């Protein structure tokens, strides 16, 4: 019996699935997108690191003909909260997720989309909690997206007055005399200062008092049905002290706004956001020096997100970056981008996202989907199987066989072809050799060979990291 080659594998050094030789401009493209494409890499290398970064920072949301065409068939994008509420149903949710996935795959504004995802997790809202539902669609449109590359104070305010957030964290049901602390606590712990940011239980209680009256119009007969309203009858108008700042009585709706201002400018907030952004783009374990450098920019620019991103996405940070594990949505989006699907519908991807527990806006706790390899690595088999749906065909996703085949004329050509289309020539030697062994001596070659080859390549360790 001939032993397979792997039986003789000697114990080897662990390898990181990240090409250490990858150039800084290429790293920028990989880190600021849902999977690089050949065109994007060429563009970045043509205009250079800084120009590419600036181009991405300046690019309008939903740039590109493909995504524009795709979104044209989504009427709910312009619906009022009242209309969204009145059309609350399963199909609306599916259409929203479909558009979200399409934007990740098709939009040219890749860095923008990455930041939308970042804020969606930072100000995480569970679509299916209580009365949240389609108000999350408005939150995405009115809070996350317009401010994704704006000022932190603005997105914080937009989130605080977003009906979806008010419903999700119960502030809509917070009255004077019996304030609900749910939102106040998460505002301090998750949205701004961080759990060890230096606030007390007393601060949580005072912040909760400040936000009483920030609620949602839940009268379905009302013209402002579903919208944020300030209800003075619910507000506690007494004096409050938040983080040592006295808020005089009679402030009404200004109490909450004052709190948001204090929090947006707090040094703990700068550090907390800096650390999260570094984790998102650079490494799961940023150094104190890295955090301080980014936090300083955050403070000196009053939370200008573009300036902060310039401080995060520096050549030195990128060259020192550690491998990051693609979360499932990122993984599937990167497969779709690299394989150049012709997409008329992404909703079928919802099935595979479900199997890997990563449907957008479907994370229960308010802390957002985890940004850690350790959490996601368990569903590797489900990931691989999800890809089989994509490779063999899903409703609305058409595979581009001529592109995937390229000039490959036999099975032995496939490792090289896969290295070109999926890995841009960066496939680690060990994986390349394994593919070569796999296809060696195979004298058949057809459509299924190509599909299976892609299926196998998408399962390789390297395709799961970026």
């Amino acid at each position, binding site marked *: *019996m001939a*032993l*397979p080659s*792997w*039986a003789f*594998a000697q*114990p*080897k*050094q*662990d*390898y990181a699935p990240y090409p250490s030789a990858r150039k800084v401009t290429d790293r920028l493209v990989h880190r600021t997108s849902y999977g690089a494409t050949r065109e994007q890499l060429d563009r970045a290398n043509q205009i250079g690191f800084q120009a590419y970064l600036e181009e991405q920072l300046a690019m309008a949301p939903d740039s590109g003909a493909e995504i524009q065409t795709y979104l044209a068939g989504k009427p709910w994008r312009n619906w009022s909260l009242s209309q969204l509420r009145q059309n*609350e149903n*399963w199909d609306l949710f*599916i259409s929203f997720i479909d558009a979200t996935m399409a934007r990740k795959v098709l939009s040219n504004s890749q860095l923008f989309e990455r930041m939308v995802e970042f804020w969606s997790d930072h100000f995480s809202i*569970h679509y*299916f*909690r*209580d*009365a949240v539902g389609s108000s999350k669609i408005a939150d995405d449109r009115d809070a996350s997206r317009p401010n994704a590359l704006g000022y932190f104070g603005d997105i914080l305010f937009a989130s605080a007055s977003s009906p979806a957030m008010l419903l999700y964290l119960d502030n809509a*049901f917070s009255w004077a005399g019996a304030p609900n602390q749910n939102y106040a606590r*998460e505002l301090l712990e*998750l949205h701004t200062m961080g759990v060890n940011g230096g606030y007390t239980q007393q601060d949580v209680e005072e912040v909760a008092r400040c936000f009483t009256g920030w609620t949602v119009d*839940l009268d379905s007969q009302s013209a402002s049905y579903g919208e944020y309203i300030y209800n003075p009858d619910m507000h506690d108008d007494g004096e409050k002290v938040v983080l040592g700042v006295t808020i005089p009585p009679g402030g009404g709706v200004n109490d909450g706004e004052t709190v948001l201002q204090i929090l947006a400018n707090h040094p703990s907030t700068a550090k907390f956001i800096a650390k999260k952004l570094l984790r998102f783009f650079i490494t799961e374990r940023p150094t104190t020096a890295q955090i301080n450098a980014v936090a300083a920019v955050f403070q000196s620019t009053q939370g200008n997100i573009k300036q902060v991103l310039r401080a995060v996405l520096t050549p030195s940070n990128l060259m020192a970056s550690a*491998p990051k*594990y693609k979360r499932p949505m990122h993984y599937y989006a990167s497969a779709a981008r690299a394989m150049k699907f012709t997409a008329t519908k992404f*909703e079928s991807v*919802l099935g595979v996202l*479900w*199997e890997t*527990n990563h449907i957008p806006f479907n994370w*229960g*706790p*308010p*802390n957002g989907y985890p940004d850690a390899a350790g959490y996601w*690595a*368990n*569903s*590797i*088999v*489900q990931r*691989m*199987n999800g*890809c*089989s*749906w994509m490779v*063999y*065909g*899903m409703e*609305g996703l058409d595979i581009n066989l001529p592109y995937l085949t390229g000039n490959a004329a036999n099975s032995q050509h496939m490792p090289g072809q896969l290295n070109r289309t999926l890995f841009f020539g960066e496939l680690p030697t*060990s994986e390349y050799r*394994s593919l070569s*062994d*796999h296809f060696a001596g195979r004298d058949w070659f057809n459509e299924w060979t190509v599909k*299976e080859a892609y*299926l*196998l390549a998408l*399962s*390789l*360790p390297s395709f*799961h990291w970026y």
Partner: protein
Amino acid sequence: MQRQGCNEYRSLDKLLSGEFGKARPELEIPHVEDHADVVSRRGFMTALRHSGMAAVRPEWLPLVQMSPSYVSQRDVVLCIFMRGGTDGLSMCVPFGDSDYYRFRPTLAVPRPDSGDSRRCADLDGFFGLPPAMMPLLEAWTNGHLTFIQATGLMNTNRSHFDSMNFMESGKANDLTLATGWLGRHLLSSAPMTDGAMTRGLALSNSVPKSMSGGDRVTGVSNIANFGLPGSPEEQVQRQSMLGDLYSRMIDPAKTAALSSLRTIDLLKQINFANYQPAGGAVYTPDDDFAYAMKSSAALIKAQIGVEAIHVDIGDWDTHSEQGVHDGHLFQRMQVLSKGLQAFYRDMFAAGAPNLTVVVMSEFGRNIRENGSRGTDHGYGGCMMLMGAGIVGKKIHGNWPGLHEDQQFEEQDLKITVDYRDILSEIVSRRLGNGGNLGSIFPDFSPTFRGVVKPITGQSLA
């Protein structure tokens, strides 16, 4: 305050059932079905050993040594979660409380002495087993089944989402706790079997909240075809190649991938396709819950190191036309009790196994039936335990009564036993991890209610 009712849950149910989106391609995707070719690995391992190459054995290959006889000081735990909020008053009928009949004019199960053909069976003179649950009477009679009444998660708002979330996390009102009680139990205890490849298995697409954060946990929707995609004839080759590559990968991807790949091999060894239930057990064909119970029995009997299993059974959200006598709820209780009966016969055929089954739901339902012959989201509910180590032939708990002045918020059954009291006692007395209760159920001091006996070394099979 306006709440959206249960629509969100019905949507979730749709998600859970996986009935959306995924269009089946015309070409059937190959699955791992025939394991005949895999058997040769044993021969291969022998060859390796004889050739002196065992030292270079790929580290992703299975580690578990199957032993024909097996003695444990701990129970395997099987957790069944009834999603949707089960009506505990229909499942464990308080016929001794006359208010039950006052508040449930059409939905009450008649008294055992009523002569009505829809009557319940008397369990202890106060509670009864409804006709739909009759398949469980033999386990009750043998002292292997019990209920805990008026239990649940305190301080909730009747939201499915919050209640499931907090109940599974093991801590009320902490939205930031991402791991579950069962996961933390596995994380804080040594494996029941040395070198176990998979300790916790959820028979669903993903690891549920209760098990998340656990040591070596995996979600497997169907143990008969958990495998890599692609053509069947190349399965072994593909898995070898990926195993080899992942074994050289950095952690956590390495450990997680190897654990999943080993689980594939682990499940192949069970030969589930040819599994023969014992004790004349009949698992209802084409029934998801029965299939999950059959899978559980096969997993436990195979003794491959799986010590915690999670199974979901949904559709308990009976807001209208509840149908306790012959309708929807009757069918759900039939599915549950028939599946449990088959599992009971299968597992107990060779004696008393080291096994505890926990059946729970996120909350009970309103005491009063509503205008559409259903019941809305409530508070206190019931739990069910099955096993040789339970204290049987009695209903546990502290019945608070159903009268207006005994209700919770003027509408619901009170909770007199925190559900964590029950789980803590099981973790401590049956799973041998009482020393870590503080981290399994944070900020909670349990009161043991005497629902299970301390474990003694028993043979599993």
